[in-house]
C-alpha cells in the first residue's frame, strides 16, 4: 500500500493550487530602465542541465557584479520538465530563467509560463541568429526564448568500414543509402546504421528533413496534427524496407549496449545531429581517426536539405519579479561572443549565432578523431540547409510517450510501421481533443 500512497501523495502535491503567471504586457523597455535594473542588487535563479554552465554564468556576474545568479543543475530534460511544471503549478520556487528545448516551447507558451521577450529588445537580435533557429523561438509575433544550441542532421560514418564495402564517402541519396546498406552488410557484416525505436527526436528530424509539417499551433487552442501525411508515410516505408531486409538494426540508442555496438563496428554510420561528433569522441575513443562527417542522404540527387534533432533555449519565466535582469541573463549566456564560444568549445553545444558559426576558434578545429576533418565547419554549412519551418505542438510529453507505444514499438518489434504511424496520429489527436484543443 505504501507505494500507492506515495504515488497518490506525489499526485496530490503536483496538483496543488494551480496559479497562472502574471503576464505583464508593457511597452518597450528603455535603456535607463535596463541600467537601473542591472545596477540593483538582485538574485536570479537559473535552471539548466548544461554541465559546467557556471563558467558562462561567471562571465555574466563579472559584467554585472550587482546581479547574483543561483544556478541549479536539473540533470536532464526528463527530470527538468516535471520539476518545472510542479513549481509552476504550486506557484513556488519557479526559476527566473529556465532551459527549454525547442520542442517544448509551445507546451510552456500554452500554460502562459513564458515571458514574451519582445518588449525587452529580443526582436532586435533576430539577424544575429541562424534563420531557422530563430523561427523556433519567434512564434506568432512573440519571442519566447533565447536560442542556445541546435542539431542539424548529418551522417557520421566509419571511413574504414565504408571503404571495405566499396563506398566512396557518404551516400548522396536515400536510394544510394539503401544500396550501400546491402553492400555494407554483405561485405563487412556491419549494419549501415541503427534505427532505434526509442528515439522520437531522430525520427522527427528525418520527417523534418523530408519536408513534413506534422504540427502547428496558433498559441491559443487550435492545433493541427498531421503525423500520418504521405511524406511521413514514405519515410517510415523506407525504413520498413531496410528493417525487413535486416540491413539496419533496431537497437535502442543511448544505452550501454548501443555504445558498445558503436565501439565494436556493429554500426557503420550514425545519422546524427551536429552535437554527435563530440559525443562520439567521448563514447568510442577506441575508434579514433576512423570517423568522418558527411551529409545526410537526400531525396534526389542535387538536393541539399537537412533536418534538426535536438536544440535548446533559455527562457524567462513569466512569474519572474526581475524580468529585465532575467532577460539580460538569458541573452548574455546565449549572445555574448565569449559565452557562446565557450558553450561551443567547452560544453560542445552546437552554436546558433552566426558569429560563433564563423569564428575561426570554432570552425578551424581539426579533431584527430575525424582524421583531421574540419567537422565544425562542415556542420556549420549543414546548419544553413535546415528546412526553415517546423513547428511543435503544445503537448510534447504526450507526443513523445505515445511514440514509444506506437511507431517506436513497431520499429523495435519489426511490425507494420505505416499502421503504427497511423495509430500514433490517432492517439495524439484523441489526446488533443481530450485536453480541449480544437484539432484542425
Amino acid at each position, binding site marked *: *500500500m*505504501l507505494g*500507492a500512497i506515495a504515488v497518490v501523495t506525489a*499526485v496530490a502535491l503536483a496538483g496543488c493550487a494551480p496559479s497562472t503567471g502574471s503576464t505583464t504586457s508593457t511597452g518597450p523597455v528603455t535603456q535607463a530602465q535596463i541600467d537601473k535594473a542591472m545596477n540593483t542588487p538582485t538574485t536570479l535563479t537559473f535552471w539548466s542541465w548544461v554541465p559546467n554552465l557556471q563558467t558562462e554564468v561567471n562571465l555574466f556576474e563579472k559584467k554585472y557584479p550587482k546581479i547574483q545568479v543561483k544556478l541549479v543543475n536539473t540533470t536532464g530534460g526528463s527530470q527538468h520538465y516535471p520539476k518545472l511544471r510542479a513549481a509552476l503549478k504550486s506557484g513556488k520556487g519557479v526559476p527566473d530563467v529556465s532551459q527549454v528545448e525547442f520542442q517544448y516551447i509551445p507546451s510552456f507558451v500554452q500554460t502562459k509560463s513564458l515571458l514574451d521577450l519582445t518588449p525587452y529588445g529580443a526582436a532586435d537580435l533576430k539577424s544575429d541568429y541562424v534563420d531557422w533557429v530563430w523561427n523556433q523561438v519567434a512564434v506568432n509575433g512573440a519571442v519566447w526564448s533565447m536560442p542556445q544550441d541546435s542539431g542539424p542532421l548529418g551522417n557520421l560514418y566509419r571511413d574504414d568500414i565504408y571503404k571495405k564495402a566499396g563506398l566512396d564517402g557518404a551516400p548522396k541519396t536515400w536510394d544510394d543509402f539503401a544500396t550501400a546498406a546491402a553492400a555494407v552488410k554483405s561485405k563487412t557484416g556491419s549494419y549501415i546504421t541503427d534505427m532505434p525505436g526509442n528515439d522520437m527526436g531522430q525520427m522527427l528530424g528525418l520527417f523534418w528533413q523530408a519536408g513534413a509539417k506534422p504540427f502547428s499551433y496558433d498559441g491559443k487552442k487550435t492545433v493541427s496534427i498531421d503525423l500520418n501525411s504521405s511524406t511521413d508515410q514514405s519515410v517510415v516505408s523506407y525504413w520498413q524496407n531496410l528493417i525487413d531486409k535486416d540491413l539496419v538494426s533496431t*537497437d535502442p540508442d543511448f544505452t550501454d549496449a548501443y555504445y558498445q*555496438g558503436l565501439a*565494436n563496428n556493429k554500426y557503420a554510420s550514425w545519422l546524427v545531429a551536429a552535437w554527435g561528433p563530440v559525443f562520439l569522441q567521448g563514447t568510442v575513443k577506441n575508434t579514433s581517426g576512423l570517423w568522418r562527417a558527411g551529409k545526410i542522404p537526400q531525396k534526389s540527387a542535387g538536393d541539399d536539405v537537412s533536418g534538426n534533432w535536438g536544440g535548446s533555449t533559455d527562457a524567462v519565466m513569466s512569474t519572474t519579479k526581475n524580468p529585465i535582469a532575467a532577460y539580460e541573463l538569458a541573452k548574455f549566456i546565449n549572445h555574448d561572443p565569449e559565452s557562446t564560444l565557450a558553450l561551443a568549445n567547452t560544453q560542445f553545444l552546437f552554436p546558433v549565432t552566426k558569429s560563433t558559426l564563423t569564428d575561426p576558434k570554432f570552425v578551424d578545429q581539426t579533431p584527430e578523431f575525424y582524421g583531421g576533418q574540419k567537422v565544425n565547419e562542415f556542420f556549420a554549412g549543414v546548419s544553413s540547409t535546415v528546412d526553415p519551418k517546423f513547428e511543435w505542438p503544445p503537448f510534447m510529453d504526450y507526443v513523445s510517450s505515445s511514440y514509444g*507505444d506506437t511507431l517506436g514499438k513497431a*520499429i523495435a518489434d519489426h511490425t507494420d510501421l505505416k499502421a503504427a504511424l497511423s495509430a500514433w496520429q490517432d492517439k495524439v489527436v484523441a489526446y488533443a481533443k481530450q485536453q480541449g484543443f480544437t484539432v484542425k
Partner: protein
Amino acid sequence: MSVIEVRRRVRQLHGAETRAAWLLVIPFLVVFLAMFVAPLAYSAYLSLFSSQLVGGEIFTGLGNYARALQDPSFWGGLGRVALFLFIQVPIMLAAAIFFALAIDSRRVRGGRLVRLLVFIPYAVPSVVATLMWGYLYGTDFGLITQIFKAVGLTSPNLLSPGNVLGSTMNIVCWEFIGYNMIILYAALRSIPEELYEAAEIDGASQLRIAWSIKLPAIRQAILLTVIFSIIGSFQLFNEPNLLFNIAPNAIGTDFTPNLYAFNVAFKNQEINYAAAIAFLLGIVIMIVSFVVQRATNRTEDES
C-alpha cells in the same frame, strides 16, 4: 481455533481521565490526519475533477473512474501484474520456505553464512539491483549473452518485449527471497522444541516433521508473506521504471498500473485521472488481499 472471550469491566472514565486520554492520543491523531488521511482525501477529491490544458478544471464526478475502467492500458497493466503474481510469487515463496526450512533443520553446513548470503540481495536497493541485472541481461554484450556465446549457443534476448516480464520476475525473486526467508525463519524459531522431541520419539523423519509440524505452525507467517507479495506485485514500479532506460521499447508507459499512473500524471499531465487510477489500484489490492485472507482463514477453520 476457539475464540476466547475476554470480559472487561467497562467503567466510565472521569473527566480528568478523559482529558488525559485525549491529550495522549492527540499527537498521534494529528500526525495520522495530516500525513495519512489528508493526502488520501485530497487525492480522492482530485480524482473527481477533470483538468484540461485548455479550459482548466471541471467537476466530473466519477468520470475518471469510468474512463479508467474502459482504459485498455489500465487493464493491460493489471493483467500483467496478475500474471506476475501467479507465476513469480509461488516461485519466490517456495524458494523462501525451502531456504528457511533448510537453515532451520541445522543440517546445512555454514547455515549462518547461507542465511546471510540469501538475505544480502534484500539489502541492495532495488535501483541498484535492477541496474545490475540490466547489465547482466544486456543483448549484445551482457554477461549472460557472453556465457551463451562462450559455449557456442545463441542466447535469448532477455530484454525483448516477450521476455522482459520474466526478466523482471527474476530480479524481484532475487531481491525478496531472502526477505521472506527471514520472516519464515523467525517464525520457525519460535516453534517449541518439545514438539520436535516428541516427533523424533515417534520416529518421524525430518521431512515428516517439516510437513506436519513446521509448515502448519508457521501458517500465519506464510500468509503474511503472501499478502506482502500480493501488494508488492500490484505495486510493481521501480524495476520496470528502471528497465525502461535499458530496454525502452520492451516496457511501455503502461507496463504496470503504478507506472501508468505515474506516466499519466507526469507525462500526460492528467493528474486527476492518475489519482483515479491510483485509487482503483488500491481498491483492487484491498479486494485481492481480502479474498486471499478469507480463503485461507476458511480452510483453517475447516481443518
